[in-house]
């Protein structure tokens, strides 16, 4: 075992020493010495040094170690595997493996470029999608015993051992009940996985494995057996008959009643981000359903943010929400903006000095082509937090008119206190003009005829301060500027 002149040196500048082979080991292993056993070795592999067994002595350890290193150095560009190594050494494989791992960890062996490739490849393997294979694994098989009268189910074709794709099974026409496939049992989980990935429900046809878009056929007895419309039309039923399938429309699969929505909102207010609890409260809907429904609601993601914070950051004088009875349509987004800006100015006067000369600020170009969040971000950077908070408040109020459930929630609470929006965004405000511009909105759910405003409610007093010419005939609930509760309000209409 003579590997004489191989000095192990930490990485140094390449010195041409023809009679010495230089091997690279990491600098943290510079303690290693060929002729010695270092304390690190004694501690890490103490079973060799405590006299616990005749099979493990320091001499034996050194023999193992030296052999392993030499073996590695026969081929320093490759990676020495444990399996290749162990045939040459007499000893308990677990102990040998421990020595091997020790040396590899310290880079005394297998420290080269190819080593880094190896973990990456291994990592890639781990990241591979779970292969869905049809049928039970082969180690668990149900076969007909020989000499039995029953027909034998032909074995499924073998899985491609060369690392190919998932096993494909031909439909066999056996008389045995088909063994459950992985996707049968875990179909729901798989779908949920997909849901998690893509954020929407995926229904996969059991036959052609394509996504069923608008509707699918579900077997009445086996809820996991699904066929897309195409396969159903093709008569591709497998071993079932056409009558066993019923049509399920996917378009409006998740229906939320008002009660459920109300429950959802309450739960979110109470439990915040804890979707387990929320889903438990809204007993009829799953976690994912709850989250997606909340996002669909106009102020949904606002609630997501606020529910997290739960603290009242924005101090209001006396914020009280009272259902408004009428709302007026405003016409354009420009007005909206204008008002918002003025309101900001007002707010600045009332609550804090704020950035001066707001009126002089040009309104940032609201580029409709950029994303909503970008717009929101820009807007909120222009004005101070109290302004955006106020604006959002107003937006929510408007949305209350649209959705009775939310009104019921918001009405009951002290509006500003309860929800405690801290960093409001202008998103709702942005949302509304779009809705408004679509035309006048019809009556809300309650059936009362109410006008919808643009979210910027201003009391007469406030209005008179700022808009001398303003007049308004509607009844507003509260002023989003000074947050005083007023019965009448003005400032909405523009001549």
């Amino acid at each position, binding site marked *: 075992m003579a590997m004489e002149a191989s000095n192990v040196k930490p990485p140094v500048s390449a010195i041409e020493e023809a009679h010495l082979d230089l091997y690279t080991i990491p600098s943290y292993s510079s303690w290693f010495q060929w002729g010695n056993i270092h304390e690190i070795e004694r501690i890490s592999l103490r079973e060799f040094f405590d006299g*616990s*067994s005749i099979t493990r002595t320091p001499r034996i350890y050194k023999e193992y170690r030296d052999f392993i290193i030499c073996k590695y150095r026969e081929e320093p560009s490759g990676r020495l595997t*444990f399996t290749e190594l162990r*045939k040459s050494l*007499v000893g*308990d494989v*677990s102990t040998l493996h421990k020595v091997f791992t020790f040396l590899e960890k310290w880079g005394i062996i297998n420290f080269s470029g190819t080593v880094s490739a190896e973990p990456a490849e291994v990592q890639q393997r781990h990241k591979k999608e779970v292969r869905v294979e049809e049928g039970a*694994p082969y180690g668990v098989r149900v076969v007909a015993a020989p000499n039995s009268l029953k027909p034998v189910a032909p074995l499924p074709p073998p899985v491609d051992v060369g690392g190919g794709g998932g096993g494909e099974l031909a439909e066999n026409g056996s008389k045995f009940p088909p063994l459950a496939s992985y996707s049968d049992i875990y179909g729901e989980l798989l779908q949920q996985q997909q849901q998690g990935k893509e954020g929407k429900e995926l229904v996969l046809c059991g036959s052609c494995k394509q996504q069923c878009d608008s509707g699918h056929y579900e077997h009445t007895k086996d809820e996991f057996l699904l066929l897309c419309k195409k396969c159903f039309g093709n008569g591709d039923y497998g071993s079932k008959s056409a009558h066993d399938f019923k049509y399920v429309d996917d378009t409006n699969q998740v229906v939320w009643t008002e009660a459920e929505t109300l429950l959802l909102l309450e739960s979110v207010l109470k439990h915040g981000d804890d979707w387990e609890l929320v889903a438990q409260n809204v007993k009829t809907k799953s976690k994912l359903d709850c989250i997606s429904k909340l996002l669909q609601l106009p102020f949904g993601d606002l609630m997501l943010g606020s529910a997290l914070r739960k603290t009242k950051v924005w101090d209001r004088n006396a914020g009280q929400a009272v259902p408004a009875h009428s709302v007026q349509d405003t016409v354009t987004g420009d007005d909206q903006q204008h008002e918002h800006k003025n309101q900001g100015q007002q707010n600045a006067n009332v609550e804090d000095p704020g950035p001066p000369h707001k009126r002089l600020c040009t309104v940032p170009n609201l580029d409709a082509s950029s994303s909503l969040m970008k717009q929101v971000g820009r807007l909120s950077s222009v004005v101070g937090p109290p302004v955006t908070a106020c604006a959002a408040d107003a937006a929510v109020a408007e949305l209350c008119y649209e959705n009775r459930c939310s009104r019921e929630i918001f009405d009951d609470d002290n509006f500003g206190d309860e929800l405690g929006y801290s960093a409001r965004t202008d998103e709702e405000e942005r949302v509304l003009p779009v809705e408004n511009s679509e035309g006048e909105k019809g009556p809300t759910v309650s059936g009362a005829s109410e006008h919808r405003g643009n979210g910027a409610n201003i009391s007469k007093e406030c209005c008179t301060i700022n808009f001398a010419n303003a007049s308004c005939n509607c009844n507003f609930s509260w002023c989003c500027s000074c947050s005083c509760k007023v019965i009448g309000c003005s400032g909405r209409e523009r001549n």
Partner: protein
Amino acid sequence: MKPLSTWGSSRNPVKFRIPTSDNLLPIRLDIEIDGQRFRDAFTWNPSDPDSEVVVFAKRTVKDLKLPPAFITQIAQSIQSQLTEFRSYEGQDMYTGERVVPIKLDLRVNHTLIKDQFLWDLNNFESDPEEFARTFCKDMGIEDPEVGPAIAIAIREQLYEIAVQSVASAKESRMIKKGRKGFEHIPISKAGGIAVDLVKSFGNKSSVIRKRKEWDVFEPIVDLLSNEEVDALEATEERNAR
């Protein structure tokens, strides 16, 4: 980390257990009902409550859509293997200083494996599953069923040897009663003869194996074609009958 005192020495017998870091029992099922034959192998944790056996049996039958008659059979088979294992528990195991050869000779789907290596019965930190993982990784085996099969094969042999060492411990106790200070190192009857430790590990010898013996201890992994698999299965069936 287990304290070193658990490494049983030739003087202190150890309570019966599978001599691996996890005391998991290998279970093998081979049940035939009405012309249907169900085979499976897995590990079971004997400290699980026995109620789990029936739950497991039911789940298996449901997953594989087997006829319900299998439930009781499966549960009974598992239970009886468990009971047998438990009958050894509490008795002394006299592992002594023993390194035994473990042999692998198994076929999993298309993979045929033959291998031989040494296992220290006293090493209660040994891990068959880790060995199987390293094996499959080093040999580039893709079939995920091979690893567990290897681990279970190792466990079964260890189990058998552990059972024998219980019997040997009983014997040696009887012998000890007759002779004072006698140290009896049991030799296993099956599973190969224990390695002569003095010869292999003593100061006069090298633990490096002779080159000509290398291929005896090298694993052989063969990938079989479909026909070969069918042929082998037919042979196995015939042998089993």
